[in-house]
């Protein structure tokens, strides 16, 4: 009996101790708001009414090493007063968070990007401030951005991953707080390269841009055959300088958030800017430094013709190119109402001719290979038959 009481007493003391000594330290040092008490569990989530996955898991170490690692949860997720969190506001990146931006000493905010993006081809509103048609298709911040984990580089030229101990040593000469200095190093060197790989960027853009339905709502052509290009091959093989979407549509000198439509002169892929864009003289990789105007003017990744289309075009002649593709027809129909000057879905005379020649060559070559290789195969099979038969007859020499 006595032992039991003593044990209980000890447990009681232990609990008090842990509350007074351990917890505050734990709470205020690492997880000041104690959100991770629940949110550290990977299973914390549910399936929403519409079947979409809601995941509420935040990995502690990952968050702390991320670009937002110093921002408190409640600085972005406003109104976190209730558990379950039923009255939180949707995160707004234009919120002024309680970090001072050192150059102005004002509260930091991503608000300026909203102005820029609204002025761009991806903006939700038109120039006169009215919401665009199907504005829900337009990307918000998190459509492209995740809370990136710092990926510092240890050298500028090689872009090798890691922290340069030598550079950090120089910083620490004046900035003695190791944690702060290390974080600042990561903060700075993280921006020396893109935080996404080329492949991630391509897949990100294609999430919308290869969606035929979504693109046609906006009078655009879905990116159909980027993956047939050599550019994509480089991306696929993890070539560090492989051109992704950003490399051409927002190269050095052009804003990413303020990206323009290809028909606007301020776009990097506007016809007069193409040569410069292909050359990419000011980029890390000078892609086609000798690019001629002729080289730069072609269509890079517009819908190609499959073999069936090609055969159909070849047989039906004239208008077949435009008629075979039902989707293209639909698009034209929509464009009647969409008030778009140029329909990127239709080809001009030269382009249509090029495509036809291309399709024809492809068709002829396929036919040639079929006939030649097929004939050879037949010949060799006959040869094999005869040779084996003769060998049997002569009892097999050699």
């Amino acid at each position, binding site marked *: 009996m006595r032992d039991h009481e003593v044990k209980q007493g000890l447990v009681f003391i232990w609990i008090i101790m*842990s509350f007074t000594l351990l917890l505050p330290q734990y709470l205020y040092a690492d997880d000041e708001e104690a959100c991770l008490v*629940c949110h550290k*569990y*990977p*299973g914390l989530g549910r399936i929403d009414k519409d079947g979409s996955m809601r995941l509420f898991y935040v990995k502690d170490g*990952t968050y702390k090493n991320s670009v937002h690692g110093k921002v408190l949860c409640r600085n972005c997720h406003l109104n976190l007063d209730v558990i379950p969190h039923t009255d939180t506001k949707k995160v707004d990146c234009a919120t002024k968070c309680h970090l001072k931006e050192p150059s102005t000493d004002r509260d930091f905010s991503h608000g300026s990007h909203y102005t820029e993006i609204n002025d761009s081809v991806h903006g939700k509103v038109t120039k006169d401030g009215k919401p665009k048609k199907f504005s829900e298709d337009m990307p918000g911040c998190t459509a492209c951005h995740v809370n990136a984990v710092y990926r510092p580089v240890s050298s500028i030229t090689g872009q090798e991953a890691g922290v340069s101990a030598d550079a950090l040593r120089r910083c620490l000469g004046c900035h003695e707080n190791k944690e702060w200095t290390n974080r600042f190093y990561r903060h700075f060197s993280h921006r020396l390269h893109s935080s996404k790989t080329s492949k991630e960027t391509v897949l990100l853009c294609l999430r919308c841009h290869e969606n035929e339905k979504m693109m046609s709502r906006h009078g655009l052509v879905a990116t159909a055959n980027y993956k047939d290009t050599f550019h994509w091959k480089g991306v696929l093989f993890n070539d560090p300088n492989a051109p992704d979407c950003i490399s051409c549509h927002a190269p050095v000198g052009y804003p990413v958030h303020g990206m323009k439509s290809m028909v606007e002169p301020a776009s990097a892929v506007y016809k007069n800017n193409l040569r410069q864009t292909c050359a990419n003289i000011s980029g890390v990789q000078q892609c086609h430094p000798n690019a001629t105007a002729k080289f730069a003017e072609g269509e890079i990744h517009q819908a190609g013709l499959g073999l069936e289309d090609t055969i159909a075009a070849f047989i039906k002649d004239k208008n077949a190119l435009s008629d075979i593709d039902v989707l293209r027809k639909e698009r034209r129909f929509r464009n009647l109402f969409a008030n778009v000057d140029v329909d990127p879905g239709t080809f001009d005379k030269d382009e249509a001719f090029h495509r036809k020649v*291309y399709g024809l060559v492809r068709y002829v070559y396929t036919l040639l290979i079929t006939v030649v290789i097929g004939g050879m195969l037949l010949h060799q099979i006959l040869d094999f038959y005869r040779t084996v038969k003769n060998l049997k007859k002569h009892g097999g020499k050699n």
Partner: protein
Amino acid sequence: MNSEYTTPSDNDNKSTNMTPSGEIIRLNGHERLQHLFTFLTFFILVASGYALRMPEEWILKLGDAGKTLFYYRGLLHRIAGVIMILAGLYHIVYLAAHREGRSFFMAMIPNLKDAKDIFQNLAYYIGKRPSPPDFDRFDYREKAEYLALVAGTIIISVTGVILWTEAYWSKFALDLSLLIHGMEAILATLAIIVWHFYSVHYKPGKFPMSWVWITGKMPLHELEEEHPLQYKRLIEQGLIDSNDTHHATPTKKGFMQVIIEGIVFLSFIFFLGISALLIKLLYFPPEYQRQDQMANKGSMETFFKKSEAKERIGYFHTPDASVAVTVSNPPVCVQCHGTFPHSKSPDVRSFLNMHNYFMACETCHVHQSDIETKMDYVWFDNQTDNRVDALTGDSGVYGAKLVPILTSSTGKLQRLDHSSNEDFVREYQANKNKLTLEEKAKAKVVLHKDISKKPVQCTECHGQKPYIDFATVGYTPERAQSLYRTEVADMINRYMKFYLPTMFDADLMRKKKTEDLEKENRSTK
């Protein structure tokens, strides 16, 4: 006819054309060197060229090695391309400047006899003729192959050079060059496999290979058989002696011979595979799956399918791979209820799903009070299904699930998450579309016969009189203590409004909260 043999070269070459052992020089040093260059560069070019056309899944598997491969692939392709062109030029110079080159060229020119030979030879194959036609130094097969090689080399070199100097050409010219370059490559590779490899490797009698490309020599009996016209002419000219023609006697296979035959046989299978890939490339070029075509897959499925956590765009707080828990032998429950089964109780559903990550359904949904035998709780590894005694990891990422087990009087263990019911579940799954509502309801009663009406409640475990002894189960004493008093309790002080005690009392909560939420139209019920 055959004027090339009237040139003085033949007489001069008497010594080189003939070897004492009854052989004739079929390919001289220049020709063998040219073949060697063509052969080596061809393989390098094919390998480095088709590296680009590998199926995408293969390339993705390469990971970082892909970067290196991509760099050296391009470099090698260009170097080999240049060497191939140089070898072609060497061949042209050889044809023009060397006596034997000129004779080679003259003998390669196709003539009317070749056209006749084709039909006669085919007639021989199908048994309409007793013997093949008499071929000259180069038969129609060799001439066709040579001419195809010449044409192919020109086509592929020109388009290759255009692609290399891309900045000076229009997109149309480049597209067309790329198309032709690729098509010609398919044609050439398939022709080499079907035409050339058959006649010098796989053809019975030639297997494992014709040695002419290395030794340059052809035995006279083979010459007599395959190129009788040339044989007869050489005898007439007195350049060879028919007495030297002796048929080879079968020799015992040496060890090397067996090895070479094995390799060549394996190469046959290998090239069969290559041909299949090329044919697929030609007729069924890869069509990548587009986003909108994948649309009807559930978002959860697509979420878990994405291998790299970084690709999970839209999940701002970049989750790691631990989110997708894989169980090698999943219980039947997940077939209907999924891996995030709780959705009805708006306030605690996420908490309950969180438990689901490291617990079997039956841990809560089979209550001790409904069962006569005493239940024990044991961790089982997600992959191996072995018992885990020492728990590693934290935040539920243990790689194991807590499962209630029963021990029978005979000492046999029964895992409650794999019930005797599983066959019935499978049958139900297979036939459920045919069942009426009533039948379904009846079946569901059977399906859930082991499941308690009232599951274990939150406070039963997370309270001072724990339902499960966490320390015995495998948690550290400290962790067990924190589970008894619930960490969540710490939050009470931090929030202005907190739905306790209703939060952990399912009955009360359902009554009160769902009413509220339905009013707000937030219920997922």
